[in-house]
């Protein structure tokens, strides 16, 4: 059998065998009834003790959502989602009366994060990284709170921020991604539960990496997190999100909204390691991942970079974007997307150049294996005032086996003659000859594939914060592990 055919055979088996995050935590849950209607929205808001304005905001979003249609332009297909067949709020009972310290947190929950490689207790914490751990609809704990407070950085679950810093939340929430931006953003606005809020005041360089770890555990429960990061003038923060879920036969819904706001000379580096359960080798189960992520570079010379390593989810619909308003602002998008078995991903970015001399850079690396299908969809738009704006796009696809698909759909709109857009794209295949060559030199097939794939993605891996680059590289290898031999 030719090596790549063999590869495909092996690839088919792996997600199930190697998805080591697929365990379930058995804790007593507090849920609100299944289904979605205005009462459910009210119940979520009540659970969170929200102020009136936020409830109204949610209800408005809900009403608009009921009038919208699910988008159908992405190159993905899945059975019609019954939005009434999900739970929209699930939280471990033990968290109901807000544990004050980790000692009061249910050890089962702490153990869950430990197994996921995200220790929350004092001694074992990742040095230099503050973590907000979100379990289904609520935050379990946030580490290093004290140290961050000293620096003036606000990092807390968004529900806590609504109570403690309502003026900031109200000022910025929904200003980057309006409630009616798209179907999934409207849904999220109506039912979002937890997520992180970050505010870095003027001139502050956040002293550590911030990280949120999202875990979907409960059955038939959607996760709708909302993240809002504001970086004031001359401030800097690096933020990372990670995600996993247990293996389940039914599909689970995840529709997040992330809003980033960057003021003058400020910078946000946002990294994602997304490893939601991708479904089994026959495409059963897995997460539907419909995410709206957008950054507004409001200030002059502000900068945002999105770096993502996407290996999980059954269906991905995700286009982290940058609106480059401030003159001289910069947007970057570095992406590694891996699809295997029957995974489908339609992902890319949007770079909207509004201000003068704005710059954007897109490096996308897509790897398709098994019978998966992947589309890069990207928009580069130069508005009339984007004098001297520049974009560079490099979009590479790597195929493993011959039953997977890779597509590139670039949209380019230029309304300023001085703006320049450069687009490069390549498609290549891991060939039998490459694997044979490596093996003749003493590598086994797994090592050979890892070497080839790592060579393909290294440009993007380098963009991840050090603490996570190693983990991400391991994830890239695991996602394709056993895929040869």
């Amino acid at each position, binding site marked *: *059998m*030719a*090596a790549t055919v063999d590869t495909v055979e092996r690839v088919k088996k792996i997600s199930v065998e190697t998805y080591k995050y697929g365990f379930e935590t058995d804790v007593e849950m507090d849920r609100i009834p299944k289904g979605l209607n205005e009462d459910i929205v009210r119940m979520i808001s009540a659970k969170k003790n929200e102020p009136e304005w936020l409830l109204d905001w949610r209800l408005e979003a809900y009403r608009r959502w009921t009038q919208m249609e699910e988008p159908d332009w992405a190159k993905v297909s899945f059975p019609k989602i019954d939005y009434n067949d999900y739970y929209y709020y699930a939280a471990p009972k033990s968290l109901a009366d807000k544990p004050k310290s980790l000692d009061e947190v249910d050890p089962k929950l702490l153990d869950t994060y430990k197994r996921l490689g995200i220790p929350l207790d004092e001694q074992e914490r990742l040095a230099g990284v503050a973590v907000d751990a979100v379990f289904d609809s609520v935050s379990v704990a946030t580490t290093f709170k004290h140290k961050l407070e000293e620096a003036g950085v606000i990092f807390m679950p968004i529900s806590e921020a609504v109570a403690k810093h309502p003026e900031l939340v109200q000022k910025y929430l929904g200003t980057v991604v309006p409630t009616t931006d798209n179907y999934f953003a409207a849904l999220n606005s109506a039912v979002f539960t937890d997520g992180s809020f970050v505010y870095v005041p003027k001139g502050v360089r956040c002293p550590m990496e911030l990280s949120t770890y999202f875990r979907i555990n409960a059955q038939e429960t959607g996760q709708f997190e909302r993240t809002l990061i504001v970086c004031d003038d001359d401030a800097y923060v690096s933020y990372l999100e990670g995600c996993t879920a247990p293996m389940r036969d039914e599909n689970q819904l995840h529709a997040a909204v992330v809003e980033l706001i960057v003021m003058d000379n400020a910078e946000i580096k946002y990294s994602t390691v997304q490893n939601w359960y991708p479904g089994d080798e026959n495409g059963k189960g897995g997460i539907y991942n419909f995410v709206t992520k957008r950054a507004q570079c409001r200030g002059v010379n502000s900068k945002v970079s999105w770096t993502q390593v996407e290996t999980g989810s059954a269906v991905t619909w995700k286009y982290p974007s940058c609106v480059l308003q401030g003159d001289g602002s910069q947007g970057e998008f570095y992406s590694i997307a891996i699809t295997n078995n029957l995974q489908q991903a339609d992902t890319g970015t949007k770079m909207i150049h509004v201000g003068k001399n704005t710059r954007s850079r897109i490096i996308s690396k897509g790897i398709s294996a098994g019978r998966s299908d992947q589309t890069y969809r990207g928009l580069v738009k130069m508005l009339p005032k984007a004098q001297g704006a520049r974009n560079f796009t490099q979009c590479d696809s790597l195929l493993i086996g011959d039953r997977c698909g890779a597509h590139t759909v670039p949209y380019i709109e230029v309304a300023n003659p001085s703006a320049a857009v450069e687009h490069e794209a390549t498609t*290549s295949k891991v*060939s*039998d*000859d*490459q694997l*044979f*060559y*490596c*093996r*003749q*030199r*003493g*590598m*086994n*097939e797994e*090592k050979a594939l890892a*070497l*080839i794939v*790592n*060579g*393909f993605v*290294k440009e993007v891996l380098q963009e991840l914060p050090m603490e996570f680059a190693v983990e991400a590289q391991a994830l890239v290898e695991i996602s394709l592990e056993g895929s040869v031999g």
Partner: protein
Amino acid sequence: MLSIQNLHAQIEEEEKAILKGLNLEINPGEVHAIMGPNGAGKSTLGNVLAGKDGYEVTEGSVFFKGQDLLALDVEERAHVGLFLAFQYPVEIPGVQMLNFLRTCTNETRLARGLPELSGMDFLKLARAKAADLKINPDMLKRSVNSGFSGGEKKRAEILQMALLEPQFAVLDETDSGLDIDALRIVSEGVNALRDGKRSFLVITHYQRLLDHIKPDHVHVLADGQIVRSGGPELALELEERGYVDYEKAA
């Protein structure tokens, strides 16, 4: 060292027989040259020895240092000391040559029960071996064989051989695409590895390579068999007369 007996092999997909009863004995320290018309099966022999997918051995046996070579996986054959310098070295875009070489070397060392070399030690070793072959150190930073000239590719093959220290190497038309200077450098690289124990099977069309790498035996491979064997003088004769006799016979 290597004992090939009555080897028959075919292309798996087409069931097309390529090797049709090939016999060859190679002792430690010997250099054997194989010459023969295009399409005779020379590269196929190298590929079958190395264990490439897509070929099926239908008859015969190959023993390497007393071990049934055909029972081993591709990488195991490499680990026990078999090296194939490719006629067409394969490009691997994005993978840095140095990283590739280090992975090859360390995987092989581990398999042979030797400790891995540290990044620093390996770098020194690779630079020294590259210098012997007059390889520009910048080449080590480029992607494996990508955009290499024909000559650079062949030199890189010899560099890999020097790092992996095989017991037995098949050089498949390593001389083609080399100018006179490169030919000399590559030959010196090969000769440097001739230690009286290591053996070589040199596939070539040209006598000029054999001026540099002196063979102990020369064979003519035509239509999947060794049809004639002799000493170095046979290469001279072939150079003069070509393969007409053997093509007719085939």
